[in-house]
């Protein structure tokens, strides 16, 4: 290959290093109004009254809207492709502003002013009365008998979805254990059980969540946003406003990181609404760092109640897990992340008898959990790898050898048919062990005393590359020839810092034979002209969207 496989300098390196690259807020017009969200100061309850009279007196205030002024439309926010089947659609469980408060800092009103200072001062003067309920920020509190259901129109209690996955339909851990006792004798078995926990964390992308919106002369509401998913954002804004999709336009300039947070539709629909409420004037809605951390999306805090059974000579027999995730106040990505977490826990190891993994997504009065880099698998890996090492510790097994003998095998086929084609997991383990001097260090660190001690440890993972067959992934690409024989390449799988524009350029060059210096990738996506693609998420752009600029491989190749 000529271009692919070579370490070309990033196509956006110069602009980003020199500071010339334009991000959303670099493009805000001079006369743009500034908006500030008024957030609830309780975690659970209902807004009964809002008094904006004092706030309106602040010089510079242009408009104040409250939860009683927004359209009575609930909409979903997940950065998923829309499903044409109602049963698979993302759950619409929030409005632009919500009178029913479900987290501390829930969005209940918004102020638009000529500048940020006026908007912030006015926001602080908005007086709110609440009917207050007990906060239920943890999984345990939300599941306790008598806990307030947060979305009674959608679910009777706070369990959003519960799924159960087993390696075979008849697998039962207790029965497997009985079978093991008969086969190996109780004294020849090792069993470990425990409750393992992972925290809620924030993506901490450098560029905060920000957008600005105006109504164009053709009547389109146009939103310039730091988003990973311009086409999805357009569709969700249309759903939230009740406007036709054609009257919504989303433009994505360079973005300063997303890590999944911007794979959700965040402040954009409200931003569009505020512009419309101000007669189409340009309104900027930039969230603060504090708002980004606690009021956008987070990684699910998760609890795994786990058990594992192995023989004394290091054969993994059976595992089971009940995995609970704290999904926060709203559905966001629904159950997808929790389901992925449970199946990944199940699939990464090979259990001779089998494995069961149940997943529960739980609504709570805390920050909304959504997509974050690796989509549930960091939790799954922590659960699976901790349990594995606890079994090894109890049984006196070498954790590397145990994994070599009991991890997911080559050619693995998941229950939904996804197949592990090229496989070098065990080679990776071998190489990692060599590098860290595993065997020597395991011995050297075996019997330490004193306050400072050393150890070596390992973790493994597997990760499905795309989404198919759960949904069909559609990517479009356009190439346009210039008079000098160079081309523009236009895609809607966005560059979010991961280097997509560079590798897409390499693939386009490799495919067409046109040299890299004659390939111009268009980094800004404008939904009015950019071909359709659902955007940058999962670990799929170079795999899925890459196919739109590359001769067909995969299924077609195999068929030949």
């Amino acid at each position, binding site marked *: 290959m000529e271009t692919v*496989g070579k370490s070309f300098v990033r196509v956006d390196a110069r602009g980003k290093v020199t500071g010339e690259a334009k991000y959303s807020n670099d493009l805000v017009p001079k006369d743009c109004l500034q908006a500030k969200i008024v957030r609830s100061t309780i975690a659970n309850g209902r807004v009964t009254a809002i008094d904006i009279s004092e706030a309106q007196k602040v010089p510079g205030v242009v408009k104040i809207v409250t939860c009683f002024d927004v359209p009575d439309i609930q909409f979903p926010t997940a950065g998923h492709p829309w499903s044409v089947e109602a049963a698979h659609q993302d759950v619409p469980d929030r409005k632009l502003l919500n009178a029913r408060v479900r987290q501390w800092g829930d969005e209940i009103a918004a102020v638009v002013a000529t500048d940020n200072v006026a908007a912030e001062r006015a926001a602080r003067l908005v007086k709110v009365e609440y009917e207050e309920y007990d906060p239920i920020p943890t999984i345990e509190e939300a599941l306790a008998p008598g806990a307030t259901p947060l979305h009674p129109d959608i679910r009777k209690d706070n369990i959003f979805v519960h799924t159960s996955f087993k390696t075979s339909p008849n697998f039962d851990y207790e029965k497997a254990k009985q079978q093991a006792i008969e086969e190996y004798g109780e004294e020849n078995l090792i069993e470990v059980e425990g409750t393992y926990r992972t925290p809620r964390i924030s993506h*901490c992308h450098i560029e905060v969540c920000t957008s600005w919106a105006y109504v164009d002369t053709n009547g389109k509401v146009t939103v310039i946003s730091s988003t990973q998913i311009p086409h999805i954002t357009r569709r969700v804004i249309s759903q939230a406003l009740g406007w036709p999709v054609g009257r919504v336009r989303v433009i994505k300039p360079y973005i300063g990181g997303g890590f999944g947070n911007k794979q959700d539709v965040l402040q954009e629909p409200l931003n569009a609404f505020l512009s419309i409420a101000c007669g189409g004037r340009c309104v900027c809605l930039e969230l603060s760092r504090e708002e980004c951390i*606690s009021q956008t999306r987070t990684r699910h805090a998760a609890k795994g109640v786990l058990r594992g059974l192995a023989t004394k000579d290091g054969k993994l027999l059976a595992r089971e897990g009940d995995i609970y995730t704290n999904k926060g106040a709203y559905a966001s990505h629904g159950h997808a992340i929790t389901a992925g977490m449970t199946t990944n826990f199940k699939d990464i190891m090979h259990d001779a008898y089998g494995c069961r993994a149940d997943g529960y997504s739980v609504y709570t009065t805390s920050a909304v959990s959504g997509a974050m880099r690796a989509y549930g698998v960091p939790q799954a890996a922590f659960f699976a790898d901790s349990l594995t090492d606890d079994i090894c510790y109890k049984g006196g097994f070498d954790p590397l050898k145990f994994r070599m003998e009991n991890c997911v095998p080559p050619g693995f086929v998941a229950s939904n048919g996804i197949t592990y084609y090229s496989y070098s997991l065990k080679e990776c383990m071998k190489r990692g062990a060599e590098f860290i001097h595993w065997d020597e260090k395991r011995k050297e660190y075996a019997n330490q005393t004193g306050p400072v001690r050393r150890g070596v*440890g*390992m*973790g493994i*993972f597997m990760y499905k590359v795309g989404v198919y067959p759960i949904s069909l992934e559609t990517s479009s690409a356009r190439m346009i020839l210039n008079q000098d024989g160079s081309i523009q390449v236009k895609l809607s799988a966005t560059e979010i810092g991961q280097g997509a524009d560079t590798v897409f350029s390499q693939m386009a060059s490799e495919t067409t034979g046109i040299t890299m210096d004659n390939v111009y990738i268009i980094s800004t996506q404008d939904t009015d002209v950019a071909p359709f693609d659902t955007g940058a998420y999962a670990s799929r752009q170079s795999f899925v969207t890459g196919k739109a600029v590359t001769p*067909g491989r995969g299924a077609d*190749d195999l068929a030949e």
Partner: protein
Amino acid sequence: MIWQNNICEKIHTQPKTKTCVRPEGTQEKPAEQNARKLAFGGAYIDNSQNDGSAGESVKYSAWLDGAVKEYDIHDLPNGEAAILRDTGVEKDIIPGKVLLSMKDLAMNAFYSLDRSEHITAEVTNHCKENTFASGCCFVDLEVDMPLGKVKINNIINVHDSGTLLNPKLAEAQVHGGMSMGIGYALTEELLYNEKGRPLNANLLDFKIPTAMDCPDYHVEFLEMDDPMGPYGNKALGEPPAIPVAPAIRNAILHATGVSMKEIPMTQQKLVAAFKEAGLI
């Protein structure tokens, strides 16, 4: 068949072409790859029907009339031949020879007096393939038990991500993920008070690793061509963040015999666990 539904179909010559006549400004292709990778919009010689020498069955393809067409060289309709004739293509056809530059081709396409056309191509691809990526993290660390402080002395991620598209970019992607993994293992957690109010929603109190907290990151790849990826590639964007926290957790278990059930393993939590285990 492999070209169906592909962007190149519109702007390229026919896929059965075995030997391309390379437009100037494009890169040379190894012969065995020509079936898959054809040059953009140019004119080609197809000698798949014979031994490669120019002759009666030699065909060429061009973008003319807005569609890719293939003509027998002896049956060129006058109009279509005109562009090629201008460049002297009719004679001395040698596979691999440059017929016309991409620029000349483009200029003709834009400004031809009778059939100018803006050459563009668009495709919607359906990805009906999937596969798994994998990998691991190994860590060698030191635990100061009275302080609950963990110092990483050596760390490596090894990835099974298929063929790398850009090795330097791939390595950088792994560095960022490993840093996220260290924060996940040791310091990051969004906390709430009993009223449900966030306590540390700022970068002072929500502790992500700084440059001072990051050890040297070692990265290796075991590249295998995956039949599902467009260039044998598979996932790498997210995976680097996955195996680091469990590796650190398991190294602490190896060092101390204490099985931490919860991340982040902050200094406070580690000290409490070591006390409970009677180690300090």
